[in-house]
């Protein structure tokens, strides 16, 4: 009996100790890879603990550059990834990426995108055609055209100027270097904290877009591993080391991602 236990352990050990990689993409987010890498590693140590992996099993790769993300997702062949919804819609299904969890932020698992202008300058997107439009979401043009604008506008309809930092874009709007800025939910909620926030207004609001979370590669991971990661993330906000962060960033919980949640946006992508 004891011998069988040892044999089983030897057979299972290679799989249990196998290194796992995670690519974390954050294009247009204003977070520097150099600053984010150590923190990402610490987060993964907690995930490993919660998922029953040996400490150091996961190797993270953080990038804030869209082109680097595309390259790493191919070159590094990660087992898990944190990608944008735009990336997942573009490559996800065909490359075997399965959504595992999505965050619930301020009670919602969706977000809305808006286009803001200086008050009284424009009434709708029609009036903005040919004008300078900035913002961090523009780092993913296809996503903006197909999902945010639902195919009604192309970025070439505007003078599109993607921005690395939302504050920079909003300041440029205030200083009349831009005529409009596309913002996400979190940026829109914080506009009032800016000294000129009261001088801006939204003239466009998208339909709710589901938040994307952690995805697992179905060919390189087992269903059990994906389940473990999903479970670890679900327990994250309840852990003393994870709770503070979840509270601080308004994340209520991580919920198991149901593939059907993304059906509507996938239909828009085709």
């Amino acid at each position, binding site marked *: 009996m004891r011998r069988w236990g040892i044999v089983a352990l030897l057979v299972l050990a290679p799989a249990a100790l196998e290194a796992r990689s995670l690519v974390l993409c954050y294009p247009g*987010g204003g977070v*520097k890879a150099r600053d*984010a890498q150590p923190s990402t590693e*610490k987060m993964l140590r907690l995930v490993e603990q919660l998922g029953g992996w040996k400490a150091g099993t996961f190797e993270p790769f953080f990038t804030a550059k869209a082109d680097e993300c595309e390259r790493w997702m191919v070159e590094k062949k990660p087992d898990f990834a944190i990608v944008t919804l735009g990336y997942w819609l573009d490559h996800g299904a065909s490359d075997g990426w399965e959504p595992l969890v999505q965050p619930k932020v301020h009670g919602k698992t969706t977000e809305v995108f808006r286009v803001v202008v200086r008050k009284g300058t424009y009434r709708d997107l029609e009036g903005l055609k040919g004008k300078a439009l900035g913002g961090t979401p523009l780092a993913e043009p296809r996503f903006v055209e197909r999902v945010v604008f639902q195919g009604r506008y192309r970025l070439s309809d505007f003078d599109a100027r993607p921005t690395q930092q939302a*504050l920079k874009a909003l300041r440029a709007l205030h200083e009349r270097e831009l005529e409009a800025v596309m913002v996400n939910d979190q940026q829109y909620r914080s506009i009032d904290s800016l000294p000129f926030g009261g001088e801006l207004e939204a003239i466009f609001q998208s339909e709710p877009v589901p938040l994307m979370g952690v995805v697992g590669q179905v060919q390189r991971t087992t269903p059990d591993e994906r389940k473990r990661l999903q479970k670890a993330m679900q327990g994250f906000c309840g852990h003393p080391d994870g709770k503070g962060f979840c509270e*601080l960033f308004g994340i209520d919980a991580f919920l198991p991602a149901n593939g059907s949640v993304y059906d509507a946006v996938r239909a828009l992508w085709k």
Partner: protein
Amino acid sequence: MVGWALVPWIALIGIGCGAQRVRLDGVSECPEDVPSRPPDPPSYQDLACIVVAAREAPSLTAAQHRVVARAASDLAAGETDTSRAEALADEGLEHARKALTQEDHPVSHYYVGMLWGLAIARRPLAALKALPSIEHHLRLAAQGTPDEDAGGPLRVLGMLYVKAPAWPQGIGDTDKGLELLEQAVVTHPEHPLNLLFLAQALRDNEAEGWEQRVPDLVRQAQELLERRDFGWPARRWRRELESLAH
């Protein structure tokens, strides 16, 4: 998506690490009293003696607390072991806060802001919560005593804006940070740390013309270090300049 809250959240996450009092070896024949002015240039022996004397002192004046805060900060700056550097920063912060309790002085605000930032650099959750307070102290210092430590308040506040998570997650503002760092270099080109910080910020943000400016700034800073003895903290500056040069 770009607006999705999970990624910035992960980028800032961290798990707390505790601090403990650092043992300062190789120090002998220290004066019993804490001076009321910091040593110049600050050798390891001078700095360590100040911290050791402060540990034994029954009470200190506000000026002495500031000297201890500065000594701990300089010791931390030259320290290669990150845990020791953090513990020294913690100890210095304690003194800076005591100085501030005794007397509302802009130099004390500078030390509180700087040491608080150093002490929690590897504790991102604590850092994120503390950022607005750190900014407050450094702004008071920049307004009240911008020339302290050869532009220290401008330099540290500038770096805080460059390093902090960007709006709306944090107070980070690259443009504002670079502006302050440029200002520190213009007003105090004689301090190598002003040149080093600006070079790091330009490179990290790939700011316009950084490829030309960074080697120039590095060379100027290295020349300053050749010409004058900046003491114990310069050990680390040299290493960082070296890594920037390659």
